[in-house]
């Protein structure tokens, strides 16, 4: 039995009157890849932003390696945050910096690696995600969507984080490029031995990269299990979501 890397209990977060997370309980074991599925606007992004300290939850606990980071002060929590990396939905590359400076950002700013060394390391990581060394000196705006995602992935893994978050990693990519990114995600997570938490509504991607799947609906985790269990489940919400049907218990708020 592996220990829990992330342990979330009773997490609440509301924006004004709108309750987004309504008591979320979820665990991710060390080295495991959890995919959280759910419709748009069900609070998936808010969940990972709370774990990363971008948002502060209203109540509940988030334990990383057994330590509740919601109880720590900013400086102490910073140590936990430095173990994390994230691939953003729109890649969120810094457009004032070149590709390699983006990838090496965490190495230069936090690990205080000399620039020359950091550049070599950045080029090595770029190769790992299938990009040639020539790309290193380009600016992010000169790259295609798929390439930006790769650079985003390279930036997320360059600091060798213990936990990596993927926010809709395949959104906006064609099916083939999606699959390439899925493969890269699996490769890099396994390569680092990292724990991964992905949020997506792309079921093909979820099936491929998940060890475990959890479904978020109306601010609660309503179901979790493996991909096999998901295909056999009787849970009407999960069934409707994986079939992608407009008929069922999930009502689409227009």
């Amino acid at each position, binding site marked *: 039995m592996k220990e829990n890397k992330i342990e979330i209990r009773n997490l609440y977060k509301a924006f004004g009157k709108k309750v987004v997370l309504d008591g979320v309980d979820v665990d991710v074991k060390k080295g495991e890849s959890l995919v959280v599925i759910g419709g748009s606007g069900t609070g998936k992004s808010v969940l990972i*932003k709370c774990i*990363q*300290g*971008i948002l502060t939850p209203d109540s509940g606990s988030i334990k990383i390696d057994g330590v509740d980071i919601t109880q720590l002060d900013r400086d102490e929590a*910073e140590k936990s*945050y*430095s173990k*994390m*990396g*994230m691939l*953003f*939905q*729109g890649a*969120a*590359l*810094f*457009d*004032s910096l070149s590709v390699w400076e983006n990838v090496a*950002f*965490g190495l230069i*700013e*936090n690990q205080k690696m000399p620039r020359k060394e950091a550049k070599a390391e950045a080029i090595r990581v770029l190769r790992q995600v299938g990009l040639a060394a020539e790309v290193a000196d380009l600016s992010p705006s000169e790259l295609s969507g798929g390439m930006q995602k790769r650079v985003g992935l390279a*930036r*997320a893994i360059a*600091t060798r984080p213990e936990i990596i*978050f993927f926010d809709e990693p395949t959104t906006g990519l064609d099916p083939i490029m999606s699959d390439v990114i899925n493969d890269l995600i699996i490769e890099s997570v396994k390569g680092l031995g990292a724990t991964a938490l992905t949020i997506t509504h792309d079921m093909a991607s979820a099936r491929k990269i998940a060890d475990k799947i959890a479904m978020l609906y109306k601010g609660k985790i309503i179901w979790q299990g493996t991909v096999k269990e998901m295909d056999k489940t009787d849970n009407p919400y999960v069934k409707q979501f994986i079939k992608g049907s407009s008929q069922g218990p999930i009502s689409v708020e227009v």
Partner: protein
Amino acid sequence: MNFAEKFLRRLGKTLVTFVFRLGELSLFVARAVYNCVTPPFYFKLLGRQFLDIGFYSLPVVALTTIFAGMVIALQTYSGFSSYGAESAVAAVVLISVTRELAPVFCGLMVAGRIGAAMAAEIGTMRVTEQIDALTTLSTNPFKYLVTPRIIAGVLVLPMLVIVGDIIGIFGGYVVSIYQLDFNPANYINSTLDELQTIDIMTGLIKGAVFGFIISLMGCYNGYKSRGGAQGVGEATTNAVVTSSILILIFNYIITGMLFTK
């Protein structure tokens, strides 16, 4: 709902929003000042801001202040020549340029040039999640984005004002000598006779305050922008409008404090 109720609701909402924004801005100022005096410092970014705010603003500052000085010389001459007070031109140019025109024109031009750019850049970084990305890379976005801009604004604007002072006075000189046929030596002498420390000090104080206002409003509006391209557009407009208004208000307040006994 009748009309009165509707009106009161609207009024209440506006009032609550205003108080909320004021509180948010106060917190932002406190955070900005705190971060300006605590490490780590990003000297490279500070250098870039010095260049952006200071060096690249020189052409607009030079152009606006030289014409301001020129027009003051002309007006003073046309207004006072009937009293035979040509010598007053040098003094009026000196006082109006150093105490009011150079600081205010520098402030307004830089607000348009830099305040807008700051709000647009930081706002775009906000809506494309680049600010969140900084956090995930264990970098304090406040220190990385806001602090260098505020420090640079406060330090660079006074220097720009001094440059504006010199160029504005030069503008007055050019008009006086070449158009109004004054004696150059007399003009320079009466300018130097009139020059007081307070003229320069005013410019420095106003420059620092205006620099703070410009950077603060640019960063604040950008940092809090929401909702894509439209949000960034609004942030940019708000940054320029609010900083321009605040510059004029604070210009009056500072003049009041320095020159009324």
